[in-house]
């Protein structure tokens, strides 16, 4: 046993049982988290491959790498894969599944079998989507606008719609599990105000998953029905309304972006607290801001439709509401920054990702103000400005949060340390590559380059070349962690229970944890982030100059 790949001497969830059945039929939330990790990583590289092809095509103004139809499929599938099969599950299904029971002091999630079911739904959906890809793909844009998707596209819209419908249920079940677990399975003494902010943010995420995703489900189902049975609900030649589709679609898809960012904010709070050795400044405000984002997030969907043909008055209402939802996000950024004041800061890889997150999320969030502004949005809607904005948040924000979280909790998950030098290098490459890829796109957007363009006028080329160059650096930054995480599972330094000296119940059990998480049921008598009682890991502290 001592020479097996990922073992410590102690019985833990990884060496508890061997064999493929013990993994495919597991109900252990930690194993399910790893199942998800493998699956979403696969889809990340599928979506990333599409992105690379897109950026290669855009090196030149002419459409000379792939056919126009192929390009349209590439950006559609890049979006759908990245959003539905990578970003939305990522932190909740990997880190959330792993950590929520540990952080609240429970032995597992409330419904372990439903947890496994949610992974199988993800896999079934993934298989259907891969079939969709290899049998021709889909070219409707990730947004499926009607009547193009219902009556004009000649691609696998039904298959893609069904796949996303199913993966939506995976998301709903994950959210359901988290909400019930957080409400009903906290350890004795773990009051709401003692919960880590990670849990607050995951709770808010779960509420959105629960209430928003079903609307996407019914909307996609109606699109599938319309295509399959030639209904006319969205067909203007039969009295149907394409704008109805847009309202229904965005009613989910706007809150969806908060499903993607709130978990990254969850990670941010934990990492900043640990690497400044401080309780997060303004705990109550950060906790409440998560809830506020979830609630307000449901009220702003038509800011995607300012030029779609909605009434002037609707536009005014949605614009103003969109500014309201920006406030809680700003509050978080200020609080994280304030936490650094009089902290004791170290610069391990998770913290580098945390710094990157604040910077990039701030930039992305500020550009959201541009888009919420009616006068500006008319000009930049459906241009590269929007693409840059959402990539700043989803890649610069959510993916960096995900990577930061993976590095932070890797010792807990695997029992091994990743190589710190490589970790920092990858973080730097991601940060530099990301900015080079996406900052030029703000300029492109204001200049008027529309999105989803296979070919473009020559004056846009220089910025496109810069963007593509950046994407190659970004790609290297993403591949590195794949390699060294895998490497560390065999050769990484063994981790002890709490290598970072972090607060939180998950650090009070072994790395990796035993199958039922704790040797004894924890009884919580301390506040969250009690860093004054936890010594910093000595090895990290440099000798005073």
């Amino acid at each position, binding site marked *: 046993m001592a020479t097996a790949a990922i073992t410590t001497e102690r019985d833990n969830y990884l060496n508890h049982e061997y064999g493929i059945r013990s993994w495919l039929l597991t109900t252990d939330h930690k194993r399910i988290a790893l199942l998800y990790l493998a699956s979403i990583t696969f889809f990340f590289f599928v979506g990333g491959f599409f992105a690379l092809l897109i950026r290669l095509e855009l090196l030149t103004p002419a459409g000379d790498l792939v056919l126009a139809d192929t390009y349209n499929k590439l950006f559609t599938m890049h979006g759908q894969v990245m959003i539905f099969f990578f970003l939305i599950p990522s932190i909740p299904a990997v880190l959330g599944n792993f950590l929520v029971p540990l952080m609240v002091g429970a032995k597992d999630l409330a*419904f372990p079998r439903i947890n496994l079911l949610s992974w199988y739904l993800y896999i079934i959906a993934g298989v259907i989507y891969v079939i969709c890809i290899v049998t021709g793909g889909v070219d409707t844009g990730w947004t499926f606008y009607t009547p193009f998707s219902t009556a004009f596209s000649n691609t696998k819209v039904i298959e893609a719609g069904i796949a996303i419908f199913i993966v939506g249920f995976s998301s709903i079940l994950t959210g359901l599990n988290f909400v019930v677990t957080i409400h009903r399975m906290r350890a004795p003494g773990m009051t709401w105000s003692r919960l880590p902010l990670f849990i607050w943010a995951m709770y808010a995420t779960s509420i959105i998953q*629960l*209430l928003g*995703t079903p609307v996407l489900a*019914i909307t996609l189902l109606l699109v599938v*029905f319309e295509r399959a049975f030639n209904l006319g609900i969205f067909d203007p*030649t*039969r*009295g149907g309304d394409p704008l109805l589709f847009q309202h229904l679609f965005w009613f989910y898809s706007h809150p969806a972006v908060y499903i993607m960012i709130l978990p990254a904010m969850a990670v941010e709070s934990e990492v900043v607290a640990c690497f400044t050795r401080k309780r997060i400044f303004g705990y109550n405000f950060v906790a409440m801001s998560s809830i506020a984002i979830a609630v307000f997030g449901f009220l702003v969907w038509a800011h995607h439709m300012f030029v779609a043909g909605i009434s002037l008055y609707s536009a005014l209402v949605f614009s103003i509401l969109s500014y309201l939802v920006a406030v809680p996000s700003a509050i978080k950024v200020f609080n994280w920054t304030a936490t650094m004041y009089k902290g004791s800061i170290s610069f391990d890889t998770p913290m580098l990702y945390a710094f990157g997150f604040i910077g990039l999320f701030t930039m992305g969030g500020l550009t959201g103000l541009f888009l919420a502004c009616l006068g500006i949005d008319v000009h930049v809607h459906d241009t590269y400005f929007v693409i840059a904005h959402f990539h700043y948040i989803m890649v610069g924000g959510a993916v960096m949060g995900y990577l930061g979280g993976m590095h932070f909790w890797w010792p807990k998950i695997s029992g091994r340390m990743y190589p710190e030098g490589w970790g920092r290098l990858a973080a730097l490459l991601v940060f530099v590559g990301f900015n080079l890829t996406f900052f030029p796109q703000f300029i492109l957007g204001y200049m008027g380059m529309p999105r989803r363009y296979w070919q473009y006028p020559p004056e846009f080329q220089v910025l496109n070349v810069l963007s593509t160059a950046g994407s190659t650096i970004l790609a290297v930054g993403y591949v590195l962690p794949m390699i060294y995480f895998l490497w560390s599972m065999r050769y990484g330094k063994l981790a002890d229970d709490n290598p970072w000296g972090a607060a939180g119940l998950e650090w009070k059990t072994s790395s990796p944890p035993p199958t039922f998480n704790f040797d*004894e049921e924890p009884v919580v008598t301390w506040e969250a982030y009690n860093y004054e009682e936890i010594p910093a890991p000595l090895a990290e502290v440099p000798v005073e100059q």
Partner: protein
Amino acid sequence: MSNSPIAVEEHGPELLHHFVDAEQQRDAATLGMWLFLATEIMFFGGMFCAYLIYRVWYYNEFAVGSRSLDIWLGTINTAVLICSSLTVALGVRAAQMGKRNLLVILLLLTIVFGFAFLGIKGVEWYDKYKEHHIPGPSFNVDDLVRDYPQVHIDPRHEQIYFSLYFAMTGLHALHMIIGIGFFIFLTYYALKGRYTPKYYTPVEMGGLYWHFVDIVWIYLFPLLYLIDRKPLR
């Protein structure tokens, strides 16, 4: 398996080991089911929203389409579902009181009512099929145009009514089928004596789900069948 020195209490095999006690398990199941029903409300809500908008825009077509449905079959189905909710509620009570045979009878009755509902719905759909009111290539509402000369009907808008009719009743029926399936499982386990006054959570959860499906129908019935049943001029 669990090495946590929690207070050892008498519990049957139904207590799952990640729960501290039976009460936590039951509370979790209940909260979970209510949350799930909330998602179902959002799911049906999208269709209700579409219905609302098109009914306002195409009132005449909706009214005529509504009249073309068989109000008696719809009413009977409503009664059937209400009765089935009664049997469900009584079944939960029977489980609470440990009356196994009564529970089994009530569960079976519920299933029978469920099948009755689906059967009647099948008859209604078949009627629509015969009348060419199913959206698609053979959709034809000349009969309605003829029968209601006093209102102007645009066949395309009529098709929207029927699209929504089939989508809404179809998804409702699908939920009924799933409910019946679940109740078949419940009946099987009830026969084996699994549900006792100490543990009847699945019966209760099944009951909640069934009541929800019933309530959706209580909304669907007036919205689809009773739009305008005033006597014609």
